[in-house]
């Protein structure tokens, strides 16, 4: 019983079964081609679109590059953008592996960030401690927001997809109310100044530490938190007993029930965990880059993180490069709009590129279901 001989055929094997491994190999060859075709189509379309509004596609491409990869600062920007995306994606992966489709990360992220802001603004104490409390609070806030969907599902059977999605709108309104109410999070009036609907700036002592100085390469600590959690999640899912149970629940709930995996405990727990990761992403955005809550704070990070998980096919470590790519797109897009390309064109261009990366995975999934159904 040597542990290393995993691939050696079992002694009892009399006739090798019809070789079912051949087909995936052909499919694997197809995948890079599919990505290439899909990306070039998106690039051509994006170029046409930019030319259509009277700008130079080449300049636009140049601006995208300058904003995301050209120098240390740009690369740092991309990495900073990737950190919350990766956190959201890890959470989505956990829920998806347990067979639950949480799509409300945008709302969980907002609620988490608000809880984090409240703690960071109003808790006295040494900065580092308050920072940690704020990040933990953000995670708890996101988890509690997801818990509403969990309770609705396990108590009343409300579909998680529906409830998490709709709770985004509730979160938007609730956070907007908090940020607009002077008694809650709205910035404190300074004599002679008009207040706007945003929170006070966080004290610098509770900002996430940064490495490096602009204009050189510089990144926030958020990416390290995200990487550590991605690695940890990967180990838990693949190697631990808990991960085994989560996967079992996701792949066959009935077999899992018989084997003693409680859907409420493990499935509900996975949904809460995914909310906690989204909330933590909000906390990292708050303490790492924005340093205050204001309208449009979430900026689609929740949805983009969901896409990262989809493209990474629910593998936490594969989510790392995908999140970096999406982060670069966001950074480049931000720079592009700063060069005078209309905001909406930038949005369409980045959306095209996102679609191009999502398409092969989605196509493969559709193919898989077709063949499984045949």
């Amino acid at each position: 019983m040597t542990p290393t001989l995993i691939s050696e055929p079992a002694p009892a094997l009399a006739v090798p079964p019809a070789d079912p491994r051949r087909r995936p190999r052909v499919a694997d060859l197809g995948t890079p081609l599919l990505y290439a075709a899909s990306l070039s189509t998106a690039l051509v379309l994006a170029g046409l679109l930019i030319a259509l509004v009277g700008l130079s596609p080449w300049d636009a491409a140049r601006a995208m590059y300058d904003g995301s990869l050209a120098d240390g600062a740009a690369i740092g920007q991309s990495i900073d953008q990737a950190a919350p995306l990766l956190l959201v994606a890890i959470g989505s992966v956990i829920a998806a592996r347990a067979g639950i489709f949480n799509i409300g990360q945008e709302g969980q992220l907002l609620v988490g960030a608000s809880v984090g802001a409240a703690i960071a603004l109003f808790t006295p104490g040494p900065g580092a401690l308050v920072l940690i409390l704020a990040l933990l609070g953000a995670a708890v806030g996101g988890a509690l927001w997801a818990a509403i969907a969990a309770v609705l599902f396990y108590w009343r059977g409300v579909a998680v997809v529906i409830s998490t999605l709709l709770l985004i709108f509730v979160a938007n309104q609730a956070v907007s109310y908090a940020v607009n109410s002077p008694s809650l999070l709205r910035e404190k009036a300074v004599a002679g100044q008009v207040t706007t609907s945003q929170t006070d700036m966080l004290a610098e002592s509770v900002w996430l530490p940064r490495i490096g100085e602009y204009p050189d390469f510089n990144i926030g600590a958020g990416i390290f938190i995200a990487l550590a959690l991605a690695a940890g999640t990967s180990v838990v899912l693949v190697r631990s007993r808990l991960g085994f149970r989560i996967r079992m629940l996701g792949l066959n709930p009935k077999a899992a029930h018989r084997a003693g995996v409680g859907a409420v405990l493990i499935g509900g727990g996975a949904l809460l965990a995914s909310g906690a990761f989204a909330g933590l992403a909000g906390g990292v955005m708050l303490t790492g880059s924005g340093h205050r809550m204001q309208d449009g704070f979430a900026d689609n990070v929740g949805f983009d993180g969901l896409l990262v998980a989809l493209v990474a096919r629910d593998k936490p470590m594969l989510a790392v490069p995908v999140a970096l790519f999406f982060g670069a797109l966001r950074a480049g897009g931000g720079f592009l709009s700063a060069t005078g390309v209309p905001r909406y064109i930038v949005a369409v261009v980045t959306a095209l590129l996102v679609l191009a990366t999502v398409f092969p995975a989605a196509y493969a999934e559709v193919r898989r279901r077709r063949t499984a159904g045949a």
Partner: protein
Amino acid sequence: MRPSPQASDTAVTPPAARPRTGDEHPPAPSVLPVPVVQLLGIGKRFGAVRACEDVSLRVQAGEIHGLLGENGAGKSTLMKILLGLVVPDTGRILLHGEPAVITDPSAAAAHGISMVHQHFSLVDRLSVWENVVLGDRGRVDRDRARTLVREVGARYGLEVDPDACVEDLSTGQRQRVEIVKCLRRDPGVLILDEPTSVLTLEESRELFTVLRRVVADEGRAVILISHKLDEIVHATDRVTIMRQGRVVARRATADTDVRSLAREMVGRELSKWTAASAVGALDALIEPGTGEPTGGTALLDVREPAAAPAPDPRPPAGEVRLRISDAHASTLDRRPLLRGLTLEVRAGEILGLAGVEGNGQAALGDLLSSLLPLGTGRVEVCGVPVATGRPGAMHAAGVGIVPEDRHVSGCVLDMSVAENLLLADLSSVTSRGLLSRRRMAARARQLIEEFEIATPSPDTPMRQLSGGNQQKVVLARELAAQPQVLVAAQPTRGLDIGAIEYMTERLHAAARSGIAVLLLSTELGEILTLSHRVAVIHRGAVVGEMDRADVDTERLGLLMGGQAA
């Protein structure tokens, strides 16, 4: 024309005494007219699997043509090709001598080919007449539809109330509805796929009477797909035998017998045990006789049944391991599943629970998989009450189960073989919350060897194993947990002969080692081969119980049909 049970024992009498329910029907003439259906050189591959190769079949008007073969022999694929559900790679189809292209089931219907599938396609909540006209175009004419159901029913002896709701009908009656659905389209060819698997003995006899009428009086052709030798011998005129995708023999039924059919179908002689449970040759089991060593390898010999099938001599009655008392349960929409089911299984015995499909066996399996909570009643394992429906409770109490549909609760298809050999029993391979790959692989290797599971490696996804090997994985895992009670629900359904032999031996070995075994099966042959005691389940309750030695199939059949006997 309904033969009384004593007068014409279609399903259990030896072939010598075979009654012909349609005596007026002459045997097929030697000079054959143009066949209604002719399949020539049909071939079909699915990936590397050869489902059919050079298969030819000719079916004449006015005959019942048996299509015999084990599970996986290619019968179903062949019929799917005839119905236009599968496109053949090679070969031709001739209908009435004319080449025909059948692209989908509606084209097949237009050619007069109609099939009663093994699993019914009826809408439970609709009435009989609604089901019969379902899919018709134009205005719904309720009165005409009801008259139609009555007329077709009267013509073929398929009486069924057109206004009854399908969900209130017995399985036998539902099958009548399916047949009425087909016959009212006036098909030239009627195909029935394993039609008796859901019927009692009595209902099977009635069905064959109807079929005889369909072919004899109206010159239609019937194709009867089956793996049960008895019904082939008793009900068909000619038989085509398939093995591993090829036709191995064509016979006039009158010139053959159960023994030679079995040999041709399997390709070798069978032990009497297997013959009974695998191919439904009940005769060998019912004749009284003197004891033969357990697991006897006597060849199937129906004419001179020398021996009883001989399960072990009755084991000394052990203590009660599983006790279910007055169990009531229902679905969420309050349809009853179990109605006061009570049974006991003792250590070291196999209790066979016979019954027609759909009488609560699935609910009982779910109950013992912790998937169904009881309304009232209780389940005790070794005298200790077990909370029903709570995740993992039955497993923790020592109930192992080989479930009816292993894909639903028996295994996780997208996990590896090694992982499927664990599922609930993670403690032996876990330390500080982490799984040890080394110990997982070691355990998997040991079980793979011990249970002769054919898999390329322990890391192969469960999905890639054959049905028989998936079943072995489930059995290996459940036995490795050293259960007090082992439940086997339809453990051999869909398996080939080799796998059936294997399962049969393993269940016996389990009982010998002191485990209380509960066998749920709709195959009477399987029950009779394996059980020490036989109980009958009907409409969610146990309606009768007897020792194996006292079994009387006639009484068993009546109990399964719900008549007190």
